[in-house]
């Protein structure tokens, strides 16, 4: 079970624009390093962040385009070891990506559909994913866990 991030979690607000994604990535990597998150978890979380932001910008419509996106990063102790949690908040139409169906992996190049890969990557790479609507905002929580080296 994941516990909510501590109140001292790091925050960033970005415009819903692909040019802002790299600033968000830099913030995530710097924040992850300061929270002593291992490189592997930072790499995966960075990919998840990019995919979630890309989905918001591509599919979020006018409500996303006209409001900033809030990001929050914090540690989240888990029973089995350590954890880090990224929270993404937006004001777009409610969409629970946790419940969205994943497309099956293609069996051949002819069958391959280039869509839906972003969500597949997020669901494959994260250890936990939670969604809720809170005070008119979508809130997506993505967690990574690891066991500390002794």
């Amino acid at each position, binding site marked *: 079970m994941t516990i909510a991030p501590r109140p001292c979690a790091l925050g960033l607000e970005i415009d819903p624009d692909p040019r802002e994604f790299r600033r968000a*990535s*830099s913030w995530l990597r710097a924040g992850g390093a300061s929270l002593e998150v291992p490189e592997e978890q930072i790499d995966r979380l960075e990919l998840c962040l990019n995919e979630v932001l890309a989905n918001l910008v591509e599919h979020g419509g006018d409500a996303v385009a006209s409001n900033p996106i809030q990001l929050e990063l914090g540690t989240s102790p888990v029973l089995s070891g350590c954890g880090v949690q990224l929270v993404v908040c937006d004001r777009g139409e409610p969409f629970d990506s946790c419940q969205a169906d994943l497309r099956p992996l293609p069996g051949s190049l002819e069958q391959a559909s*280039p869509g839906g*890969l972003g969500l*597949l990557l997020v669901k494959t790479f994260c250890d936990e994913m939670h969604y809720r609507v809170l005070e008119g905002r979508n809130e997506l929580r993505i967690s990574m866990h690891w066991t500390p080296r002794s």
Partner: protein
Amino acid sequence: MSDPVNAGTTVFVKHEDLSEDLRRICLGGRLDMIGVGEIELPFTALAATRPIAVLVDLTGVSFLASVGLRCIIQSAKALDLKGGRMALLVGDNSLVRSTLDAVGIAEIIPTFVDESAALDSLRVPQT
């Protein structure tokens, strides 16, 4: 402290024709929405306009988002329709490898760690 995100942002696409019907295309840098926007047209033009064998070298890619995967898959499909074929080279790039594995791309585009094995696979005549 250096910023690994901005340090790896310079994207590039280079190519070398190893023979009349075998082309090597090297992609490098950060293949996110911005990066793919910069290389998509030249990459597609190099990869999918002639019925040849194409090795796409991803060893220099520092970040591979789904938009980059889409670009590669679309070019592979277009090349396949023209009668050509594509293989991917990842070398020891574990980040790119894990991204490719997550979507099962090796099931649809042959993926290699070793360059000579990749080239050998493309030199085998198609049945």
